C-alpha cells in the first residue's frame, strides 16, 4: 500500500517551501500562458522568454496550488531554463511518460509503456537521453491517481507556452 512518504518526498517539499523561478516576466518579449485544474481550482501561470536561437533564456512561474502542482512547476522551471525548445518538449514527453509508465503498471500493462518512455527519453532525433533528475521524485504521484493532474498541470501549460512562442516567432 502506498504511503504518504511515497508522495511527499523531501525534495518535493523543498521545492514547495522554496519554489524556484517564482514571479513574472515582462510580456512581450515573454510568452504567458495559464493552466487550470477545474477539479480543485489550482492555477499555474508559465512565463517563458525564447530567444532567436530557440533557447528558453528565462522562465517564471505564477499562480497557486497544492504541494504537488507547485513543486512540479518549480522543478520544471529549473529543468528547462537555458534549454532549447526542442529539449523542453522532450522534457514534457519524458515527464508525462514518468506519469503514465506507472499508470500502465496499475493497469497491468507496464512493460510496453516503459519501452515507449525509453524511446521518448532517447529522443526521436537520436539526441542524448533526458535526465529528469529531481523530477523523478514525483513518480510516487502515480500511486495516487487523482494527483497526476496536479503534477502535469504546469507541464501542459508549458506546452501551450511553447506553442504560443512558436506561433509568435
Amino acid at each position: 500500500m502506498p504511503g504518504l512518504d511515497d508522495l511527499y518526498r523531501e525534495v518535493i517539499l523543498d521545492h514547495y517551501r522554496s519554489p524556484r523561478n517564482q514571479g513574472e516576466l515582462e510580456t512581450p518579449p515573454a510568452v504567458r500562458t495559464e493552466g487550470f485544474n477545474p477539479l480543485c481550482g489550482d492555477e499555474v501561470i508559465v512565463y517563458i522568454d525564447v530567444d532567436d536561437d530557440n533557447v528558453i533564456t528565462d522562465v517564471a512561474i505564477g499562480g497557486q496550488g497544492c504541494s504537488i502542482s507547485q513543486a512540479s512547476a518549480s522543478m520544471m522551471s529549473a529543468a528547462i531554463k537555458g534549454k532549447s525548445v526542442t529539449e523542453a518538449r522532450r522534457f514534457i514527453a519524458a515527464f508525462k511518460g514518468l506519469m503514465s509508465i506507472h499508470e500502465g503498471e496499475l493497469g497491468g500493462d507496464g512493460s510496453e509503456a516503459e519501452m515507449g518512455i525509453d524511446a521518448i527519453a532517447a529522443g526521436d532525433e537520436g539526441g542524448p537521453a533526458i535526465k529528469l533528475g529531481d523530477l523523478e521524485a514525483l513518480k510516487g504521484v502515480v500511486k495516487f491517481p487523482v494527483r497526476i493532474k496536479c503534477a502535469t498541470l504546469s507541464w501542459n501549460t508549458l506546452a501551450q507556452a511553447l506553442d504560443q512562442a512558436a506561433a509568435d516567432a
Partner: protein
Amino acid sequence: MSGIPADIKKDFPVLQQQVHDKPLIYLDSGNTSQKPQAVIDAMSDYYETTNANVHRGSYDLAVRATDALEGARSKVARFINAPAINEVVFTKNATEAFNLLARSWGATNLGPGDAVVISEMEHHANIVPWHMLAAEKGFELRWIPVTSDGHLDLSDLDTFLDGAKLVSVTAMSNVLGTLNDIPRLAEAAHAVGALLAVDGSQYVPHVPTDVQAMGADFLIFTGHKMLGPMGIGVLWAHAELLEAMPPFLGGGEMILNVTKEGFTTTEIPWKFEAGTPMVAEAVGLGAAIDYLAELGMDNVRAHEIELTDYALRTLNERYGDRIVIHGPQVATERGGVLSFVYGDPDMRVHPHDIAQVLDQAGVCVRAGHHCAKPLLQTMKVPATSRASVYVYNDESDIDALADALEASGDIFAF
C-alpha cells in the same frame, strides 16, 4: 440527546469497511450521502419483484411498477408539504432541474430589461444555466453579495429586486453552511411581482422542509444527498406555474398526442418527464424519505446542530489560529458543512494536501472549490477543505478528523 440512535452506523453497509487499514470516516455527505440498507433493499426488491415500464403497460406487473413510481412521488410531496402530488417533477438531479427551470420557465418569461437575482453563494447549478440563458435572451443576472461572516447581504435588496422577475437562491450554502432567510426573500420577491426559486439541495436532506411555509414558487433538490440513490432529483412548483410552462425535453411519456403536424403535451407532472423515467431510483428515494421520516427530521436537524457545535468547539479549541472555519460560527445558524483552512496562519496547507493526508487516516473530506467558484473568489481563497456531516456521523468522526489534521501539520510544517 437528539433522538438519533447511537448505533445508526450499522444501517449503512458502506461505513462497515476499512480504508488504508483504518475505519472509514465519511465526512463528505454535502457531496453525496451514503445509503442505508433499507434504500438498497427497496431498489433491488423493485427489480426483483416489480420491474416493468410505467404508464403504458396493461398488465398487473406494469400497474405495480407505475404505482411504485407514483407512490414515491406522493412520498416526496408529503415530505416537503407540497399542496399537490402532481406538483412534484422528477429530474435526473438538481442540475437538470435548474436547467428545466431556466429552459422552460426562463426562456418563456425572460428577455431584455428583465433581471434574475441570484447570490454569490450559489452552486454552479444555479449559476451556469442562467449564464447560458442570459447570453441568448439578454436579461441581466444580478448577484446578492455575501458578507465577511458568511451571510447574504440583504441591505440593498430593494435595489436588487427592482425589475427582477426571478430570485433564485440556495436555502443552505454548500460551502459556508449558511441558512438563508427564505421566507423574507419570498416576501420581498413577491412584493415586486418576482418569483422565488430555492435550491434545497443542501437544505431538504437536513432540515424539516415545508414549501408552503417557505413561500417558495420553485424548490429544487436531489435524491443522492438525502440517503437516496444518484440519478433522481426533484423540481417542485405550484401547479399553475407548471401548467403554463412549455415542456423541457420532448419524446415519449410527455405527450398526449403526436401527429405528422405536431404534438400536444400530457398533463403535469409527466409533461416534464420525457422518456422512460428512473423508477428504481424513485423507489429508492421513497425508501430514503421513509427512513428519514422514521428518524424524524426534527431529530435529524437537532443531531446536526449538536454535531456542528461539537465540531466548531473541538477544532477551534484544539487548533486556535491554525484553523479558520468559514461561515456562521453559531451552529443554529448553519448546517453541518464545515469549510476550513488549516496550517500556519501565514502558510496554510493546501486543501488538496489536507484531503490526501486525511484520506490516509481513513477520513473522507472534499477539497476544492465545491462548484461555487464565485463564492470562493469573494472569500479570496482558491479552495477549501470541507467536512460535512449527516445522520450517521457522531462525535468520534469529528475526533478522527481533528486527529488526522495534526498529521498534515507535521508533514507541511515550515
